[in-house]
């Protein structure tokens, strides 16, 4: 099935094989395998230092890998370019940077426009539509430091929307946002999934992970479990992922209890 030559089955949207990443000889990801098709909303959960962000960065080619590979529709990242989108953690950029909200959203379209061409009127219209979708249109001409944390997160989301990618990697899009922003982000993620996009979202909060995502990737150095949320969100697998920390387990028990337990 892995053979690149004329196979009747189309290649999977994302295929990760034996991916290994190490920082200064200390492994942070070890032999990660994963295959997924279109239209999936995947939560990546695991304890701190489990390699969640690293997995995303490795898929985007942002950190050097020690082994294994990642393919999108059977091709390496370098060949698929703007079909794969990325929402980094909010703290990774300098919000004092002298650009407006509109400038940042337009960056999402650079891959489509070509790097040497000016964004056209149509690109600006598309960017405005994306800002509308995250309820930020009135802020289009503001410099980006004049925004709240939740608004900054939504700017990143609008930029990802403007890219019109088919696969998205999002690094903690819910970090430091209020409940209303969180709800609006979730609805945008679901819209994208319903359009056939596949999304990987690093997430910290277990109880909501269960509501938000239809697939879960439990990660701790390697893949503990990967599958539909109903099958993977079990006390046993979570305990294996988090190493049986008490506070966490009670949180899990609560989450399971609140929603009727695993089937």
């Amino acid at each position, binding site marked *: 099935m892995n053979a690149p030559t004329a196979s009747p089955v189309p290649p999977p949207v994302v295929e990760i094989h034996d991916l290994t990443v190490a920082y200064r000889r200390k492994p942070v990801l070890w032999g990660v395998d994963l295959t997924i098709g279109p239209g999936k909303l995947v939560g990546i959960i695991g304890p701190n230092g489990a390699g969640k962000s690293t997995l995303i*960065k490795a898929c*985007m*080619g*942002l950190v050097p890998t020690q082994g294994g590979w990642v393919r999108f529709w059977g091709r390496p990242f370098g060949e698929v*370019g*703007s079909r*794969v*989108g*990325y929402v*980094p953690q909010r703290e*990774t*950029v*300098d919000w*004092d*940077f*002298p*650009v*407006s909200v509109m*400038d*940042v959203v337009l*960056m*999402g379209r*650079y*891959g489509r426009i070509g*790097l*040497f061409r000016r964004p056209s009127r149509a690109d600006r219209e598309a960017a405005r539509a994306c800002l509308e979708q995250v309820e930020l249109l009135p802020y289009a001409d503001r*410099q980006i*430091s004049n925004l709240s944390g939740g608004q900054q997160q939504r700017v990143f989301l609008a*930029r990802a929307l403007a*890219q019109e*990618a088919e696969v998205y990697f999002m690094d903690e899009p819910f970090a430091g946002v209020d409940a209303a922003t969180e709800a609006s982000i979730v609805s945008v993620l679901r819209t994208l999934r319903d359009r056939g996009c596949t999304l990987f979202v690093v997430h910290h909060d277990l109880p909501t992970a269960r509501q938000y995502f239809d697939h879960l990737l439990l990660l701790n150095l390697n893949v503990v479990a990967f599958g539909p949320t109903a099958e993977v969100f079990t006390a046993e697998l979570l305990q294996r992922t988090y190493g049986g920390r008490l506070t966490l387990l009670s949180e899990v028990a609560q989450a399971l209890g609140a929603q009727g337990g695993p089937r």
Partner: protein
Amino acid sequence: MSGQWMLPAFDLHALLVAPWTEQRETFGWVGVMGFCVAASCGLLGNYLLLRRMALMGDAVSHSVLPGLVIAFLVSGGRDTGAMFLGALASGLGATLIIDFLQARTPLKQDAAIGIVFSALFAIGVLLTVVFAGQIDLDPDCVLNGELLFVALEPPVHWGAWTLAPPAVLRMAGVLALVVGVIAIGYRILLVSSFDPGIARAAGVRVGTVRLGLMLLLSLVVVSAFEAVGAVLVVAMLILPGATATLLTDRLPRLHLLAVLHAALSVWWGVGLAVWLDCSLAPAIVVMGAVLFALAWLFAPRGGLIAQGLRRARVLS
């Protein structure tokens, strides 16, 4: 002996107008050269500031010395082309070593810069001393430069046309290159400076952009070097962008203001040098710093006075 401490007479016309009219023979090319240096440094410096690598210019300018000495020894004389290539190679080499140290050791960028530029400068000093007999390099000139010399060179002729002195032509070419790179690669520089992750997704080779920027920095610093020296070129890289940052929060305006800062500091700097009868480059940098201080005081939004007024209004 109080007379010794008296400043020369202050005559605005003589300082701000006369150098560009009656004394154009002396100061004309100096002004053009100064502006080309300050503007190319300022424009490139904007990106250094945005990428938090303002001191990279410091590193490059001090690392140039060993390259100059080696080029001098190899070419057996003061061949401009060889010296230029030697300086360029050691400047670029310094940035590569700094990047390597930063990536492969636990050191942060500031420490890596500190190690590399001081070590390379020390090697340059040693080489100058060891080969003192064969080298005619003035370390003082390397540090401080001499802007006035460029105007004394005979201008280049092209057919019947008399063009500028060679150093001025070179520097104008460098400025044109900097402007061209920014105009053509505007979006590439913008996205890779703001967010390397999204830049990669848009097909930008972030590492190549950084390398290109360092190459351009080495080129600018080495070209600016003979005019302003290793120490002051750093001020020229940082002051225009720093001043502009206080006045605007949009990148295109940042570039325009940096160029305006360059022009104003050269204009006033030449006046200051005439007034005090001192070196040109330090006078230009001093006026650049004065402009920064003025912007800090009077900036409409973040300036000290505007802040004070706002506070007063809140309290009343």
